[in-house]
């Protein structure tokens, strides 16, 4: 119908031309980029050096605490009280007190500081003490540590997906997780942001009373559908612009970082050589892990079915938004102001919030029964199915989920239009669920 085209065009253009849209579209990738940059930076940066004084009354741990990048240890023979004094005056950041302990029953170890110590710090300290006690026990029971180390085995399990063509594809759960999580989360965000936009649009039409002018030339159903579709267009445009901008920015930033990273590594290696210090085992392992994560992720890009992910993403992005957008529009039509909308928004958003909460469970078991049901039921399937798709989903499940999704949004649009046609002309009536039910049942 020609009318619906006009409505879609108005809803679309009036939003896309707004300054806030342009600003958000340009700014969001920068903010997101900055956000990820910050995460990367804070994870890799070295913590400030802390000085810790050790009062070791047992004399067992005298060579255990070695200085590293983050912590400088100094042993003292003064009394505990004196050492506490020193911490209080700010000479040291913390005080580790080890009483003369029984190796079989180590108790009474304490850490004193003026502020709360970090968990990593505590873990480091206890691990070292535990390690030393283990060593002592080993020696006592006559086992050489080197022999023990020789007994340890390190096994990495490589995962393969068997496909019917007989190829064994190296699967990458980390890459799949990242892709699934990101796409599920983006859908969740978009449904929220653009669903709320639908609702505000309807409330605006209702409170500004333009609705009566428009409704005398357009059917309520067309008006609602036009609004929902127009805003879907806004969301899609914004998303596509973001993808383009993000790719642009990340190639730019990525290029910059790649250059930096190699130079940093070189510098570190040089430093190490010069100082002739053996690299900390933990550090090495960490670096290795990072390397595998990275190769895993890039590997995922080649093993995950990217075209399928994109198709599914666009499908669930649109249908998920339509399903919820219609309900949000119905809420907008039933209330007199944004503030009144809260009580109805909550139940509508519960399935969405549940899907996000359930994501962790789905990651652990992407083919389990919870993942299956939640990816079939239309209200949770947009988020949950996107989490599963990168891991590979049987075709019939995907088809069933998609069919139900289409049925679901047709149903919510129908339901919403029943509420909408009555709601937009109602002013000043206190609306509750009972009246909503009545509106749905009411004939024209």
């Amino acid at each position: 119908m020609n009318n619906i085209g006009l409505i879609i065009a108005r809803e679309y253009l009036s939003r896309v031309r707004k300054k806030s849209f342009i600003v958000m579209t340009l700014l969001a990738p920068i903010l997101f980029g900055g956000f990820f940059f910050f995460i990367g930076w804070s994870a890799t940066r070295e913590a400030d050096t802390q000085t810790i004084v050790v009062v070791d009354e047992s004399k067992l741990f005298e060579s255990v605490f070695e200085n590293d990048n983050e912590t400088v240890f100094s042993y003292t023979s003064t009394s505990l009280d004196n050492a506490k004094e020193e911490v209080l005056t700010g000479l040291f950041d913390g005080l580790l007190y080890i009483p003369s302990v029984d190796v079989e029953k180590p108790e009474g170890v304490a850490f004193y500081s003026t502020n709360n110590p970090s968990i990593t710090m505590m873990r480091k300290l206890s691990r070292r003490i535990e390690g030393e006690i283990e060593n002592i026990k080993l020696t006592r029971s006559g086992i050489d540590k080197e022999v023990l180390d020789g007994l340890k085995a390190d096994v990495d399990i490589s995962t393969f997906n068997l496909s019917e063509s007989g190829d064994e594809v190296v699967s990458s759960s980390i890459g799949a997780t990242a892709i699934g999580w990101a796409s599920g989360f983006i859908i969740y965000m978009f449904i929220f942001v653009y669903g709320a936009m639908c609702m505000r649009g309807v409330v605006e039409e209702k409170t500004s009373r333009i609705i009566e002018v428009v409704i005398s030339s357009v059917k309520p159903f067309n008006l609602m559908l036009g609004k929902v579709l127009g805003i879907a267009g806004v969301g899609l445009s914004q998303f596509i612009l973001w993808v383009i901008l993000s790719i642009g920015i990340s190639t730019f930033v990525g290029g910059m970082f790649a250059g930096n990273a190699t130079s940093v590594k070189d510098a570190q290696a040089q430093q190490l050589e010069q100082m002739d210090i053996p690299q900390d085992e933990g550090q090495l392992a960490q670096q290795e892990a990072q390397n595998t994560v990275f190769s895993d992720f890039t590997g995922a890009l080649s093993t995950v079915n990217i075209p399928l992910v994109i198709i599914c993403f666009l499908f669930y992005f649109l249908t998920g938004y339509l399903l919820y957008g219609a309900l949000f529009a119905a809420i907008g039509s039933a209330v007199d102001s944004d503030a009144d909308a809260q009580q109805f928004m909550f139940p509508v958003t519960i399935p969405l919030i549940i899907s996000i909460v359930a994501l962790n469970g789905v990651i652990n078991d992407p083919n389990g029964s919870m993942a299956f049901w939640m990816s079939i039921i239309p209200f949770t399937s947009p988020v949950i199915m996107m989490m599963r798709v990168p891991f590979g989903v049987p075709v019939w499940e995907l088809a069933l989920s998609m069919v139900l999704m289409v049925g679901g949004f047709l149903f919510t649009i129908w339901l919403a239009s029943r509420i909408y046609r009555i709601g937009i002309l109602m002013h000043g009536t206190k609306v509750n669920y009972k009246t909503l039910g009545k509106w749905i049942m009411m004939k024209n």
Partner: protein
Amino acid sequence: MELLRIENLSKSYSNHQALSNVSMAIPKGSIFGLLGPNGAGKTTLIRIITRIIEQDSGEAYLGGEKITPELVRRIGYLPEERGLYKKMKVGEQLLYLARLKGLSRTDAVDKIKNWLRRLDLTEWHNKAIEDLSKGMAQKVQFIATVLHEPELIILDEPFSGFDPVNANLIKDEIFKLQEAGATVIFSTHRMESVEELCDHIALINKSQKILDGKKLDIKNDHKDGTFIVTHEGSLVGGAHFELLSSSRTEIGLTESIIKDRTAGGPNNLVKELINHVEIHSFIEKVPTINEIFISKVKGGSHE
């Protein structure tokens, strides 16, 4: 010839009856006053005519045809509650509303230009509605109502919120539209405000039509033989007339309102009065629509 015919319309909401069995005919080219207090059912009637809501029973015909969504395009409706998209520009907004009514883009652009000039809004063409004064926004909405040259224009409380200058401007435009062949329905609860404009009226109260017809006929029907006499000397009621009230005028005369008891006509009454006082003026008191309405609603019929 009638443009709009309404037959036995009824509509009830969950908790009350909004219209019960209302019928009326609105002649082509008339200015028709749809009068009644708040909550009488005027807006419900208009919403049924414009197909915003559906009636429970009965039918409305425009030019002899049942009103369909396509036919609604021949109606221009200015709702009582005024509203426009606040962020949209005047020109764009009018274009959007005109195109929803089925006008082509070029046609709409021409007409918008014309109307903005007519109502002195040309320089506001590119301003957002929220930057306009209330009166200006109402003019824009009036334009939106009549832009597609509807045969039937329905105005719900059209003058509320207008200052006298703009109200007169709009009145003139309404007369011009009538001359051009449009039929206008005024809906209002302030009966005195449109009495002078309308040639036909219908009174609605508590979901029922209580009266309709030509304004002149209705007034003539409701004359109750009351006259206003300015005179010198004192007047006492008698067998020929009843004295309803008396008051002194500024120039020392007495103004009395009397009611004919004989139904013998004004001439007979004057003959009788001459015997008692010196008459300076003698005029028949024609009831206002408001008075007729009140007398009808109170059930005190003088017929």
